[in-house]
């Protein structure tokens, strides 16, 4: 049985359809990568899965609970089993790294402070930041912030880990380190991960399954090999990095010429 199930999901912003009848199943213990270009609806789907927005129609179930119809109390309980690392890391700047990780433990559990300190140290050690706990987010590099966000997401030992663009804006080495971290988490904790990205090397390194989005629809869902073998023109275009609207130099030149002429013709 799938741990996250999306059925006939339709999302609209001001009448503009962003997700159009989407169906997706995410299997437990696997890394599922949501792949797609900018504006394809990846982040919208993520916000829907996290219950941050309501769909126009359709449903999303996490561990069998429909998040659009369940009570706020049930949603809160459900959210404790989902760890999220946002694209911007979204660490609380007023808190140190330790306090960022400890926040959910202090507020949602009755653990003793010494136990919380130990767990925080362990989580920071998992992401390689054990020596940086006293620092504040503004004192960290981009890659460290992303790893700290993962540590915070892991604080309550979630069954599901959601990562939004984990390698965006990072240099290839740091991005590769994050990929290895995600694989390590899956292998060590048997965690289910949903990773949103448009970085092809990262997606093909970590994914068990890839779901490819285009214009609010799922073009293809399958293993890495199935996606590589997919012959859908849009999938091929994305994988082969073919520009959608290539700059047509002669057309641009003639447009500029006409513009200059029209400016000169004006009195």
């Amino acid at each position, binding site marked *: 049985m799938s741990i996250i199930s999306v059925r006939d999901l339709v999302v609209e912003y001001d009448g503009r359809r962003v997700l159009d009848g989407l169906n997706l199943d995410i299997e437990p213990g696997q890394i599922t990568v949501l792949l797609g270009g900018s504006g394809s609806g990846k982040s919208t789907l993520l916000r829907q899965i996290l219950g941050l927005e309501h769909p126009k129609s359709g449903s999303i179930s996490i561990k069998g609970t429909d998040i659009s119809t369940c009570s706020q109390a049930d949603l809160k*309980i459900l959210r404790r089993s989902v760890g999220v690392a946002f694209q911007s890391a*979204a660490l609380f700047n007023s808190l140190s790294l330790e306090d960022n990780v400890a926040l959910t433990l202090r507020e*949602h559990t009755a653990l003793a402070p010494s136990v919380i300190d130990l767990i925080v140290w362990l989580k920071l050690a998992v992401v390689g930041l054990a020596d940086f706990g006293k620092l504040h987010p503004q004192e960290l590099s981009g890659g460290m912030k992303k790893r700290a966000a993962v540590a915070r997401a892991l604080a309550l030992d979630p069954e599901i880990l959601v990562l939004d663009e984990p390698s965006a804006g990072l240099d290839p080495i740091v991005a590769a380190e994050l990929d290895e971290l995600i694989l390590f988490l899956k292998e060590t904790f048997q965690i289910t991960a949903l990773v949103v990205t448009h970085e092809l090397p990262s997606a093909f390194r970590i994914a068990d399954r890839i779901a490819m989005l285009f214009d609010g629809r799922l073009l293809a869902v399958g293993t890495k090999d199935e996606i590589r073998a997919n012959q859908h023109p849009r999938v091929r275009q994305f994988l082969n990095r073919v520009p959608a609207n290539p700059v047509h130099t002669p057309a641009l030149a003639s447009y500029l010429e006409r513009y200059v002429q029209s400016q000169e013709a004006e009195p």
Partner: protein
Amino acid sequence: MANLLEIAGRETLSQLDYVGSLNIQLWATLRGMRAALPLVGNRHRWRAAVHQMLEIGVDALPMVALMAMCSGFILAMQGASELRRFGALHYVIDLVAVGFTRELGPLLTAIAVSGRSGSAFAAEIGTMTVTEEIAALKVMAFEPVEFVLAPKYLAALVAVPCLSIVAALFGIFAGGLFMFFSTHLGLLLYFRYVLTSIELRDVVAAMIKSLAFATIIAHVGCLEGLRVRGGPDAVGRSTTSAVVRSTFLVIVADAIFTTIFYFVGKT
């Protein structure tokens, strides 16, 4: 003409939407306020509320005191220059005492707090919105209203009335200094006259006004922050808007309360 009506209609709807949002937010915050109370609530929220009280109240104390002293001098001097002509210089004491207790104490405080803390609320929450910290709170199973707004509102409800009392005391004290230097009236005797001029209902009216002003400042600041969409420029706009709107609403509320108290006082 049709265009004018259209603009007026759109603007009216927008303002109604704003007031409606303020009321919904106020209701939600009142419901979440229990968590910020000492003993019965969450100790982390109470600690945050105390921290906010220090920022709103203690940090603003020198500025409010100085503003009140200057205004006290101005009011006493302006009053004296007119009342002296009728041989009624002693009425300066009533003017300053009643004026500061009923009106200037709460109003000066509200303007100072609106400029300092209202803008700070908008900037802080606006930045949290832009950097996805508010979304992070939600997915970490926290209620942003309870986590962010309730401590700020509770702090404003405590700090603004306290500051109003301090402002009134300093304003009245400045009037006393003026009377001492202009008529050699002893300060002790001056304060005895002050106590005979002020009635309990003046103090009650001032406290009611202060609580209303605190509500306006806290909620306008927080709502402006939560409504931020976009980047850092939007945070800047929300900060300005928070100060302008809260100052305007404070003065409107003051006019309404003064009218009510005027007619209630007559009967």
